[in-house]
């Protein structure tokens, strides 16, 4: 497994997707900052308010960009072997396909956490520059915890979409559309308490502590995210089984 993980990281180093994700993360932080220093109405909260910047940036990033980027990365890693026709060579080595898929999912998971850590580092630096005297260790750790949980939560929430991609074959574009609409719909799901608790994207905010929730709602939201993870596991397990079935059929022919 360690070798597979190492190989996946090596492959990603060659891809431009990492650079673009870093660029996208920085750009989100910059755009929110620019929005925060410009006031349109008197009631608008700005970067002058302590904690506003760190709070708002993660919400915009989670609602509009990062789930789609993480889904894109996951689906890209899983589909590229079939697309680049390297799957045959991997089978010849032989590489265990279940382990290979697991390695790709682990890389996507690590990547999701790293993206949120990067976002935290940027927002924290700016917040420290603006309100250094207001910062305390507790506040910093609370935000760090929030960002880390969101990194994990976003991966779990989009994992079923990543897992569906190999079934879509050439229609992997659909996964991206699904991920974007799925995260964007979170804006409307926060209207009611029930949908806010049950919808995976808004459930992330409940678990991370951005939304104030009751303990029972927190457990339900946590369960929803775990369910998403389990769902993707079963989808991928089904995929590996169907691939093995295909290979068996080829042998018998």
């Amino acid at each position, binding site marked *: 497994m360690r070798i597979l993980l190492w190989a996946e990281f090596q492959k990603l180093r060659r891809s*431009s997707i990492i650079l673009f994700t870093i660029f996208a993360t920085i*750009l989100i932080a910059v755009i929110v900052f*620019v929005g925060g220093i410009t006031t349109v109405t008197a009631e608008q909260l700005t970067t002058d308010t302590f904690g506003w910047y760190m709070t708002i940036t993660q919400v915009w990033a989670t609602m509009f960009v990062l789930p789609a980027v993480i889904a894109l990365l996951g689906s890209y890693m899983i589909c590229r072997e079939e697309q680049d026709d390297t799957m045959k060579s991997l089978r010849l080595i032989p590489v265990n396909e279940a382990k290979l898929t697991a390695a790709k999912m682990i890389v996507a998971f690590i990547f999701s956490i790293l993206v949120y850590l990067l976002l935290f580092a940027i927002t924290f630096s700016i917040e420290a520059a603006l309100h250094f005297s207001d910062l305390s260790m507790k506040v910093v750790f609370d935000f760090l915890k929030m960002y880390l949980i969101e990194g994990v939560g976003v991966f779990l929430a989009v994992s079923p979409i990543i897992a569906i991609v190999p079934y879509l074959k050439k229609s992997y574009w659909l996964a*991206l*559309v699904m991920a974007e609409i799925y995260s964007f719909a979170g804006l*409307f799901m926060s209207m009611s308490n029930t949908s806010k608790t049950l919808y995976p994207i808004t459930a992330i905010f409940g678990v991370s502590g951005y939304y104030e929730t009751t303990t029972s709602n927190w457990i339900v939201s946590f369960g929803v995210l775990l369910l998403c993870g389990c769902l993707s596991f079963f989808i991928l397990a089904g995929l590996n089984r169907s691939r093995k079935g295909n290979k068996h059929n080829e042998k018998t022919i």
Partner: protein
Amino acid sequence: MLKLVQIEFCKLRRKKLIWLMLLSAFIMPFFAFLYFGYLGQTDIAPANFYKWSAFGFTLFIILPFILGLFGTMLMHDENRYDMLKQLWIVPVSKMGYFFSKFFVVLIYSIGFMLINALASVLFSVIPNYVSFGWGSIAFLLERSLEIAVLTALAVLPILAVSALQKGYILPICITLIYVLAGFLITPVNSCLHPLSCISVIIARNGAISELTLPQNSVPLALVSIGLWVAASILLVNIKLGKRK
């Protein structure tokens, strides 16, 4: 040119996915229906409902994202399988090739917005949120067509990037960033990003209430879109011209 556009549509017949993507035109009318249902409001001003269903997130997020993706899909296969060489041999003019893709995006955009307008009317009139009136429907259709044409022009930079790239990762990442930038930059400067400029144009004469924009100059918005379009065409012209 017409023949090129026709060929593009013939190629699209093989891609069932793009027709599925049109379903996303129903998203905002449906959410507007849920939103006003949740608030328990009836007798809503038509412009207020349409602001949610057609002039808000549809304009800023959904349509540009779908068009960006659609443009990338149109360009990707030919770039990936290196079919451009064969097209140049035919010969197909390089700018003709680019504009044929643009016209397909434009027609797709018009189709998308017409579906969105139809869904907006259905989701507002059937539950009795908005009283039926030809005047408001004509207004919705007029602004929807404006959004369709202007958004197709606004995604020209993405189409240009897709035309110059073999991969699909960069154009898609750019689409995501471009759409988010347009959405977040609007309250700061509404004449900088093409998507912000569209909101200025469609909200002209105070037609859409409660839409606070820092700049309201329609000519400036048109000039801004024109500059983005000209820069995209110039970039494609230079880069495709160098390509063999």
